[in-house]
C-alpha cells in the first residue's frame, strides 16, 4: 500500500426525522402498509404544489451548526429532472448551486491499539450539506414491478465529504461519528436497516505523493456501516491490483454485495444524466437570518467527542467508561444525574456501564423503558458508600430495582439486607466474642495486632454475614480499649 494511496469521498443520505414530509402534510414514517403515507402532493396529482416543511429546514440548519458549516443566508430550491418510476413528479426538489450548508467537518476517532485505549482523532472536512426529498420504493415481482410511495417526499439530507479519507477504517469511523452527531441532535435516527442512512463511496487510487486524483469508481448500495468498510476495502484492493499490474481504472458505478463480499459494474460514466437543474418556480427562497440561526443554535446539544472530553475532565472517569457512555446521549445524561446525585462519579460510571447496560441487554429493553430512576441508582450508590449495605447485597438490590422500579431503601428494609443490623446487636456479638477468647484479648492488648482477627469469625457467624467488617473492626477495638 505504501506505493499507492487510496482517496475516498462519501455521499451520505440521511433521512430527517420529521412528523410530516418535506413538501406536504402527509405523515412521514417507516413500516406502514404500502401507499398509505400519501396525499395528492406526494403522488404528484395534477395541480398539486409543494410547501416547505420548516421543521426539516430547522433540522438541516442544526446539523450544519453542529458540524461547523457555513449556513447559507437563503434556502433556495432547484428541480433535478430525471424520469424514474419511484419519482412521482419525475423531478426531485433539491438544492443545486446554493446548498444550505457549506464546509464544516466531522471529528472521527480511529481504532486504538486496544479496545480500551483511545485511538487517534482527526477531522474529515465536508464539502456541503443540502436538503432534498426522498423517492418511493420499487418492489420487483416475477411479472411486474410495483411502487410504494410511502417513502416518497421524506426529507433527506445529502452530506458530501471532501475526498479526504484514505482507508476503509476512516470511512467507517466517519459514518459512526456522523451517525452519533445526527442522533445527538435528534436530526435522524440513522437506522440503516430502515434506510434512514445510506452511503455511496467515491474511491480512487494514486501513486503516493501525487496530488491529482485518480479515476474514481462510485460504490453504491452500501447498506450497513460494516458493508461500507468492507466494500471500500474490497474496492481499494481491486483497484490496487489493477494499477499494480499496469492496468487502468474505468470510471464506473459498482454495486457491492455485503453478503458475498463481491462487487459488479452497474454502469459506466458515459450514461451520465443531464439533470437540467433550474430553480423550482413553485417554491420561494427562504431567508435564514441570524435570529433563525440563533434559535437553532440554542437547541444544539454538546457534540459527542466534546462531551467525552468533558466527562473525562469533570468526573475523572476513564476512557473505558466514557467510550461506552458517549455514543448514547441518554445514557450520558443518565450517568451525569447519577454521578451528581451520588457524588461518586467513578462508582456511578461502573454501575451504569456494567450493571445497568447488562440488565438492559438481558431484558432487551431501552434506557427509556428502564424502571430504575437515576436518583434511585444514586441512592443505592450512597447506601454502599455509607456502609449501610455491602456490594453483594447492593447487586441483589439493583436486580430487584430493575425488575420492579422500587426504591433501594425499601428493598434493603424488606429483605433485611442492611449491613450489621443495629449497633446494639453488633456490640453484643463483639462482647460475646471477646469474652469467649480471653487469651486472644490479652495478646491483642499486649500489642499483637493480628490477634483481633480471632474475634471476627465468631462475630460474622453470629451476624449471619450482615455485619459491616469495618464496623466490626471498630467495635472490637473500642471494646478492647483501643477504639
Amino acid at each position, binding site marked *: 500500500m505504501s506505493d499507492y494511496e487510496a482517496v475516498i469521498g462519501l455521499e451520505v443520505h440521511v433521512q430527517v426525522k420529521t412528523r410530516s414530509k418535506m413538501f406536504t402534510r402527509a405523515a412521514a414514517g417507516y413500516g406502514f402498509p404500502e401507499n398509505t403515507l400519501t396525499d395528492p402532493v406526494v403522488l404528484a396529482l395534477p*395541480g398539486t404544489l409543494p*410547501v416547505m416543511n420548516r421543521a426539516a429546514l430547522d433540522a438541516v440548519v442544526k446539523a450544519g451548526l453542529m458540524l461547523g458549516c457555513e449556513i447559507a443566508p437563503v434556502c433556495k430550491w432547484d428541480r433535478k429532472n430525471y424520469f424514474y418510476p419511484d419519482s412521482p413528479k419525475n423531478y426531485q426538489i433539491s438544492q443545486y448551486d446554493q446548498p444550505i450548508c457549506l464546509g464544516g467537518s466531522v471529528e472521527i476517532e480511529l481504532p486504538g491499539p486496544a479496545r480500551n485505549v483511545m485511538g487517534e482523532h482527526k477531522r474529515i472536512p465536508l464539502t456541503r450539506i443540502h436538503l432534498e426529498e426522498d423517492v418511493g420504493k420499487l418492489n420487483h415481482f416475477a411479472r411486474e414491478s410495483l411502487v410504494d410511495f410511502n417513502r416518497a417526499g421524506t426529507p433527506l439530507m445529502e452530506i458530501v465529504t471532501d475526498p479526504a479519507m484514505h482507508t476503509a477504517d476512516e470511512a467507517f469511523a466517519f459514518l459512526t461519528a456522523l451517525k452519533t452527531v445526527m442522533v445527538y441532535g435528534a436530526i435522524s435516527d440513522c437506522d440503516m436497516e430502515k434506510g434512514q442512512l445510506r452511503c455511496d463511496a467515491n474511491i480512487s487510487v494514486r501513486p503516493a505523493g501525487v496530488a491529482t486524483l485518480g479515476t474514481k469508481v462510485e460504490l453504491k448500495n452500501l447498506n450497513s456501516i460494516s458493508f461500507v468498510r468492507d466494500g471500500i476495502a474490497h474496492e481499494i484492493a481491486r483497484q490496487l491490483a489493477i494499477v499494480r499490474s499496469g492496468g487502468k481504472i474505468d470510471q464506473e458505478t459498482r454495486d457491492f454485495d455485503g453478503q458475498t463480499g463481491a462487487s459488479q459494474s452497474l454502469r459506466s460514466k458515459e450514461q451520465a444524466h443531464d439533470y437540467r437543474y433550474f430553480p423550482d418556480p413553485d417554491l420561494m427562497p427562504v431567508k435564514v437570518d441570524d435570529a433563525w440561526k440563533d434559535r437553532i443554535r440554542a437547541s444544539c446539544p454538546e457534540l459527542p467527542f466534546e462531551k467525552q472530553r468533558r466527562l473525562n475532565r469533570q468526573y475523572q472517569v476513564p476512557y473505558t467508561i466514557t467510550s461506552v457512555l458517549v455514543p448514547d446521549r441518554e445514557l450520558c445524561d443518565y450517568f451525569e444525574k447519577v454521578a451528581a446525585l451520588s457524588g461518586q462519579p467513578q462508582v456511578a460510571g461502573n454501575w451504569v456501564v456494567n450493571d445497568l447496560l447488562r440488565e438492559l441487554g438481558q431484558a432487551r429493553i431501552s434506557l427509556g423503558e428502564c424502571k430504575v430512576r437515576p436518583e434511585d441508582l444514586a441512592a443505592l450508590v450512597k447506601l454502599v458508600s455509607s456502609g449501610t449495605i455491602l456490594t453483594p447485597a447492593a447487586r441483589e438490590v439493583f436486580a430487584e430495582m430493575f425488575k420492579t422500579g422500587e426504591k433501594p431503601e425499601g428493598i434493603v428494609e424488606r429483605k433485611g439486607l442492611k449491613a450489621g443490623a443495629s449497633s446494639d446487636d453488633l456490640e453484643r456479638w463483639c462482647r460475646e466474642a471477646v469474652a469467649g477468647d480471653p487469651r486472644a484479648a490479652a495478646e491483642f492488648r499486649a500489642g499483637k495486632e493480628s490477634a483481633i482477627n480471632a474475634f471476627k469469625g465468631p462475630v460474622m457467624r453470629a451476624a449471619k454475614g450482615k455485619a459491616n467488617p469495618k464496623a466490626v473492626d471498630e467495635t472490637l477495638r473500642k471494646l478492647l480499649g483501643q477504639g
Partner: protein
Amino acid sequence: MESEPYYQTIAELAEQLDERKLSSVDLTQCVIRRTKAVDPAIRAFNSFDEADALAQARASDERRAAGKSLGPLDGIPIGIKDVIAVEGQPLTASSRMLENFVSPYDSTVARKLKGAGAVCWGRLNLDEFAMGSSTENSAFGATRNPWDLERVPGGSSGGSAAALAAGEACAALGSDTGGSIRQPAAFCGVVGLKPTYGLVSRYGLIAFASSLDQIGPFAHTVEDAALVLGAIAGHDPLDSTSFRVEIPDYRSEVRKRRGPWKLGIPKEYFGEGLDPEIGAAVEAAIRFYREQGCEIREVTLPHTRYGIGAYYIIATAECSSNLARYDGIRYGHRSKEAADAVDLYFRSRAEGFGAEVKRRIILGTYVLSSGYHDAYYLRAQKVRTLIRQDFLNAYRDVDALLTPISPIAPFKAGEKAADPLAMYLCDVYTIGVNLAGLPGISVPCGFSKSGLPIGLQLIGQPYQEAELLAIAGAYERAHDWSTRRPDMDKSIAAWNASSAGRTFG
C-alpha cells in the same frame, strides 16, 4: 333574449335570488337548457354533470330559504376551465393524457367558490394543457366563437370565454399564462381578469408554467369580475407563491374609486401588425379617458420586443418539467404496448400528448440542457427582470397602462393552426403582464365592421386590482359593449348555411 337569466349579470341575478324572484335551481336549469341547445355548436364544454349542478343549486336554495345565504355568488353557476381541480369531477386539461382522470381533491379556488355558495358548473375546454391561443389544440375538439362559429374563441381559456358569451354559464374561471384569459375574453366580448401573480392560489391548477400561471375570472361586467375575484383571491398556505395581502371588497372599491387617473400608453404596443380596426377602437377608449379628465401619457417599455423570446423560453422550460409527471405510472394514459418502464414513458407520452404540447416540452428540455441553460434560460430570466423593471419605471409616472389585447381579430378556425410561430407572435401584448407578474384586464371596447368583439387591455400595478377594476369600470359604465350578447340562433343558422350538411342536435 337579453332578459333570459343566462344572459344577466351576477349582480342582477343575486338580487333576484335574494328577493326570491328566481331560485338557483331555476337559474341552473335555465343554464343547463341553454348549454344543451347551443354547446353542440360551440363545444365550450368538455363535460358537465347536470345532477351534480342541480344538487348544488338545491343546497343554495335551501341556504337562502334558511336565511343563510353565503353572498352574491350563492347559487350562481360558474363554469370551470378543465385545468382547475374540482373534487369528483373530471380534470382533463383537454388532453388524451388525462381523458379519464377524475380529481380526488378540490383546488383552492374551487373550495373558495363552494364556500361562497357558487354552483361549480361543468368542465370548460381549452388548448391542451393551456398551450395555445385558439382552443384548437384541444384533444376533444375545438371550441368555436359564439359571435361567429367559423372563428376561434381565442385561447387557451377559449371554453370559458365562449361558454360565458353564449349564456352557458354566468361567469367562468380561466387561467392566464401568457394571455389565456384576456385574449379569449377580447375575442368573445366579455371581461377577463388576470390577477397579480400570487393573488389567487394556484393549488389545484394544472401547471403549465408555474412562474407565469394565474387563475382569474371571466364575467359579463367589471362588477361581476370583481365579485368573483373577491371570492377566489387571498393567501393560501398550500401555495408557497401566494402572497399575504389584504383582500378588499372589490365591488365597493369599483363603485367608490372615480379617478381621474394617469394612464400610460406604451408606444411599443401600437406598432406594426396591429389591426387598424382594433387600433381605432383602442384610440377611442383613450379619447374617452382623456375626456373624463384622465392624464394620458406616452410611456416606453423598451424591452417589449424581447418578451416573446423570453416568454417562450421560460414557459417551455417550466412546462417541460411540470409535465414530466404525466408518465402513465400512477394515473393518466398508459400505453398498452410498453415492454419496460422506459418504453412505457415513451409510448404513453407519445400517445397521450398532442403536437403543440410535445413541441413545447421538446423546446423546454432543450433550453434547460447542459451547455444551453445559460445561453437561453438564464438570459431569458434576465430579460424578464428588465421587462418587469420597464413596467415599474412606467408606474412612477402613471397609475395604469392602456393597450390592445390582441393585434388581430378572432381568426378563422384552421387559419393559423399550421404556423405555430405566427400564433406565438399574437401573444405580444399580453405576455409582458405575465412576465412582470402584473394584473391585466380585458374589457370589451367595440366591434369590428364584421361584428367581431374587440378588447381593451388595462394593466395595473402589483396587487392594485381594486384600482384596475375601477379604471375599467369607468369605461364600461359609459359604453354599452358589455351588454351586448351574440345572437346564437343567427350564429348557428349562418354556420349551418356556410357548411352544408353540418347540423347541431
